[in-house]
């Protein structure tokens, strides 16, 4: 199978701080890959290189075979790269539904002229999108809060709204940053099932940053471990969790 995401030897530094020190990684269609590592290991930095928030100094990041380093961010999104943020990137003034609808921007058409002329196609797209968004909200147990401004809701709910927003655009590649943060136990299981479905049914490639090891081992096909910007292990989730180097990175080596 062709890799949907190919990261090769990416270097990123801020002044003297080496955030990414040459990790390479691939994620194929329908595959869920976990990206784990201690805080500050470079997981979110790698995400930022993939969807264009950072531009790596060297190395390549390819999505669907297309080099994205240096591509404008909206073009990367247009390739079908969806993302949720660790500390939320919701539109605070808007309702839950509006936030989710905004996620379909790159996946829908309707330019200025078409909108001004209110072409039938624009209306149909909007109607379909609303139906799909409400479906997703129901699926993620958010239908009750659809009309509420997001500013009034708890953190765990906001994480699920972000996920709904990323899903409504039907991403080819989904980057999920700590989705289980703030969720209760049962919600974590549902989240895992949702991600798995997205990969298996829709063939999306998913890269998952997560500290919740239960979620990682249950949904990920493979796991990659970052430490100090370097890839220190990769493979089956359970085996990786036993790798002495990984254990040392998480717990510190015995003095």
């Amino acid at each position, binding site marked *: 199978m062709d890799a949907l995401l190919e990261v090769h030897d990416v270097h990123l530094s801020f002044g003297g701080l080496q955030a990414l020190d040459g990790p390479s990684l691939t994620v194929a269609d329908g595959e869920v890959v976990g990206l784990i590592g201690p805080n500050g290991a470079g997981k979110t930095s790698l995400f930022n290189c993939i*969807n*264009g*928030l950072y531009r790596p100094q060297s190395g390549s990041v390819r999505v669907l075979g297309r080099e994205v380093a240096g591509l*404008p*961010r*909206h073009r*990367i*999104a*247009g390739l079908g790269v969806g*993302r949720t*943020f660790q500390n939320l*990137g*919701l*539109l*605070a*003034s*808007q*309702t839950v539904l*509006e936030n989710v*609808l*905004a*996620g*379909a*921007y*790159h*996946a*829908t058409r*309707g330019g*200025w002229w078409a*909108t*001004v002329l*209110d072409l039938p196609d*624009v209306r149909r*797209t*909007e*109607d379909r999108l609303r139906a799909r968004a409400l479906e997703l909200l129901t699926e993620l147990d958010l239908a009750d809060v659809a*009309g*509420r*401004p997001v*500013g*009034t809701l708890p953190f765990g709910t906001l994480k699920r709204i972000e996920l709904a*927003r990323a899903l409504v*655009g039907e991403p080819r590649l989904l980057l999920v940053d700590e989705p289980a943060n703030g969720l209760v136990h049962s919600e974590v299981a549902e989240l895992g099932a949702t991600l798995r479905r997205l990969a298996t049914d829709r063939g999306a490639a998913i890269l998952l940053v997560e500290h919740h090891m239960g979620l990682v081992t249950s949904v990920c096909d493979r796991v990659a471990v970052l430490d100090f910007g370097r890839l220190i292990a990769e493979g089956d989730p359970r085996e990786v969790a036993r790798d002495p180097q990984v254990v040392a990175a998480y717990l510190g080596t015995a003095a």
Partner: protein
Amino acid sequence: MSTTATRPARTSGGGTTRRGGGTVAEWLRRPRPPLAPPRWLAVLSTVGAAAALLVVPLVNPSYVNLTVTLVMVWTIVGLGLNLLVGFGGQVSLGHSAFFAIGAYAVAVAGEAGWAQPAALLVAGVVPFVVGYAIGLPALRLHGLQLGLVTLALAMATPAAIRAFEPLTHGSRGIGIDGTPPAWVPLDHDQWVYYLALAAASLGYVVTRRLARGRLGRSFVAVRDAELVAETLGVNTWQTKTRLFATSAAYAGVAGGLYALLLEFVGPENFNLTLSISFVTLIVVGGLATVPGAVLGAIFVQYVPTLTSSISPAATGATYGVVLILFAFFVPHGLAGLARAALGPLVRRVPGRPKA
């Protein structure tokens, strides 16, 4: 503002936190969705308003027509400026410049013998192009810096008009013939009224369409979280530039109508106070609301006139005080208040809300 918006929901359950002033302030600041009347009510009120507006100039003396036409002129400015500032979050204190360009476009086209509707078209196109050209570099700036650049634009306008003497006739200004074409059996004030009504209605519909749906959401995303908007696929720079140019075109058409109405343009008409009144208009009317442009236009047309009858210097002070009061206490403007007042009534009306 977002943090305060969360307060009502958190405290709504507890009676103990509901104390006098706090409750009123919170009630005023609470965000509310637009009114969603059933289709029959929406159609009825639109037809009713249209009928009333069509009859107004036939039954009123010309000075009334003049002020109502001015309300429509300000409405057009407000509709465009609210797209840029209210929805898109890009501050402009410089739209008096585009208003002036539109006014002078009509004046110069009139001198060249162009028909008025054609001149009005030019009054929209030229500011659009100029707005695009200014927006290309200016919209790389944010917040305060963008405010300062556009402020400079407004301040330079009267001097620039004098400097382009061959075209603008400098301080002498240009007289305009606003009388209707021979085939139109209307007086000057009625003719310009209908031109303004047509332009304002068109502007209203276009603004409403742009402000909702996919594009409207992209404007708000640019305003609330520019980086996030980009990761959602929004070309933020293009969006901002188009918004700027579009709002400049609105201001230009309004300026052109203003010139036809007054039948004269001179550099003194387009000073900084005009720009301030535009900003006051959208803040008082309600940022990021479409009907707010109408309510704000009514405000800037009538209220300063009222206060200046108390003291001639009161106009500037009125704008200042009102801006502060609204920014603090009524962030959703008169349109927000209208939603608060009419919302419960509209919800009780039978019939399915139109989508």
